[in-house]
C-alpha cells in the first residue's frame, strides 16, 4: 500500500525537475534572424515532451503549465498574455506527439506526432492570435489594429514562426528520442508496474 504513495510522490518530483530543466532551457532562447524579436525559439518544450512520453499527455501539460507559471514569477509578470500564449502553444504541440506515441509506439509515431503537433500548433496559434491574442494586445495597448493588419501579422509572423519552432524542436527531439528510447521504455515499465 505504501508503494503506491511513493511512486506518486516520485512522479511529482520528476515532473518538478522536468519543469526546472524546461526553465533552464527557456532562458537560453534565441530569436530568429528574420522574424520580430518577441517571437523567440526555445527548447523548453523538450522536457515536457519527455515527461509526456514517459508518463501521459497530462504530464506534459502539467510541465508546460508550471513552467509558464514559474516564468511569470521569475520574470516579473510583465507579459501575462505572452505567457498564456506560450502555454497554449506548448499544449497543442505536446499533446498530439504523446497521444500518437502512446497509441503506436516507436520512432515513426514520434516523427508523425511531431509533424501533427507542429501543424496543430501553427494553425491553432494562428487562429488564437487572430481571434484572441492580438485583439487582447491591441486592447491592452490601446492600438487600433485593423483586421487586415492582424491578418498580415498572423500570415507573416505567427504561422511561419510556429512552423519553424516545431521543425527546430523536432530536429532536436528525434535524435534525442532515438538515443534515449531504451531508457524511456525502461522508465515506462517502472512506472506502469
Amino acid at each position, binding site marked *: 500500500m505504501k508503494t503506491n*504513495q*511513493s511512486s506518486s*510522490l*516520485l512522479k*511529482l*518530483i*520528476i*515532473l*518538478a*525537475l*522536468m*519543469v*526546472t*530543466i524546461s*526553465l*533552464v532551457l527557456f*532562458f537560453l532562447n534565441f530569436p530568429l534572424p528574420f522574424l520580430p524579436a518577441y517571437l523567440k525559439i526555445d*527548447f523548453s518544450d*523538450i*522536457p515536457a515532451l*519527455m515527461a509526456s512520453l514517459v508518463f501521459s499527455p497530462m504530464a506534459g501539460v*502539467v510541465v508546460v503549465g*508550471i513552467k509558464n*507559471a*514559474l516564468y511569470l*514569477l*521569475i*520574470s*516579473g*509578470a*510583465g*507579459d501575462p498574455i505572452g505567457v498564456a500564449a506560450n502555454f497554449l502553444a506548448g499544449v497543442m504541440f505536446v499533446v498530439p506527439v504523446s497521444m500518437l506515441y502512446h497509441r503506436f509506439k516507436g520512432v515513426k509515431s514520434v516523427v508523425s506526432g511531431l509533424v501533427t503537433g507542429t501543424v496543430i500548433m501553427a494553425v491553432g496559434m494562428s487562429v488564437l492570435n487572430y481571434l484572441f491574442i492580438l485583439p487582447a494586445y491591441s486592447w*491592452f*495597448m*490601446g*492600438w*487600433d489594429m485593423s483586421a487586415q493588419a492582424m491578418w498580415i501579422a498572423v500570415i507573416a509572423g505567427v504561422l511561419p514562426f510556429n512552423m519553424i519552432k516545431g521543425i*527546430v524542436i523536432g*530536429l*532536436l527531439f528525434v*535524435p*534525442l528520442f532515438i*538515443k*534515449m528510447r531504451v*531508457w524511456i521504455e525502461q*522508465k515506462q515499465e517502472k512506472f506502469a508496474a
Partner: protein
Amino acid sequence: MNNALIIGQYVPGNSLVHRLDPRTKITIIFFFVIVVFVANNVPSYGIVTAFALGAMFTSRVPIRYILKGLTPVWFLIIFTFILHLFVTKEGTLFFDFFIFEFYTGGVIQGFAISLRFFLLILVTSLLTLTTTPIEITDAIEEMLDPLKKVRFPVHELALMMSISLRFIPTLMQETEKISKAQSSRGVDFRTGPIKERIKAVVPLLVPLFVSAFKRAEELAMAMEARGYQGGEGRSKLRALKVEKRDILIYLLFAAVVAGLFITRSYG
C-alpha cells in the same frame, strides 16, 4: 543571467512593502491591474499614479532595479505613444510640418495609455522585486486552498513549484558542467550550420534527463524516510500571518478605489 534565474528579480530589503504578507500583495496587485482601466481623466489617473509611485518609494528598491525591470517594455511604451501621436486625429492641430500633423488629442491619448501601461508593469514588477518566488508560491498555495474542496491538488502543485524553484541553481550548474565537458571534447555549440548546432545539444540533454530522474528518486526516498505523507495536516516552516499593516494597506487601497470611482464620475 544565472542570478536572474535563481532568485528572480528579488531585491532584499526590510521595507513595509517587503514585510507585507505576500497574499496581501498579490490580492492588491490583482485588483490594481483591473482598476487602472477605470481611470479616465486627470484626477483619476493622478490617484492611481500616486498609489503606484507611493508603493515604489516605500519599497525603497533602488530606481535602477525598477528601470532594469522595465527595459523589455520601454520600446512598447514609446512605440504606443508615437503611434497615438500619428494616428489619433482629435483635439486641435498644434504641429503641422510637411506630412506630420500632430493633434493635442493624440498627445493626450498616447500619454494616458503609455502611463497606464507603465503603471501596470511598475506594480507587477514591484511584487517580484520585493517578494521571493518561494514566498509567492506559499501565498498561492494558501490562496488556492478553497479549491481543495473540488479535489484540485493544491498542495501537490505548490510542492512541485517549490521543488522546481529549489533545483534551478543545481541544474543550471549541471548544464554548465556538461556543456563544458562536451566542449572540452570538441563539441561546438556556437558555430556551424544551424542543423549541426541543434544536433550538438542532444549529448547535453541526455545526461541532464538521466541525472534528473536519479535526483528525483533520491529526493523522494529522502522525503519518505523523513515521514512525508502529502499535504494532509502538514505544518509550515514559514507560516503566513495577516498583520495590522496588511489590514491598513487593504483600507488604503479601498480608499484609492473609492476615490477613483468618485473622480471618474465627477471629474
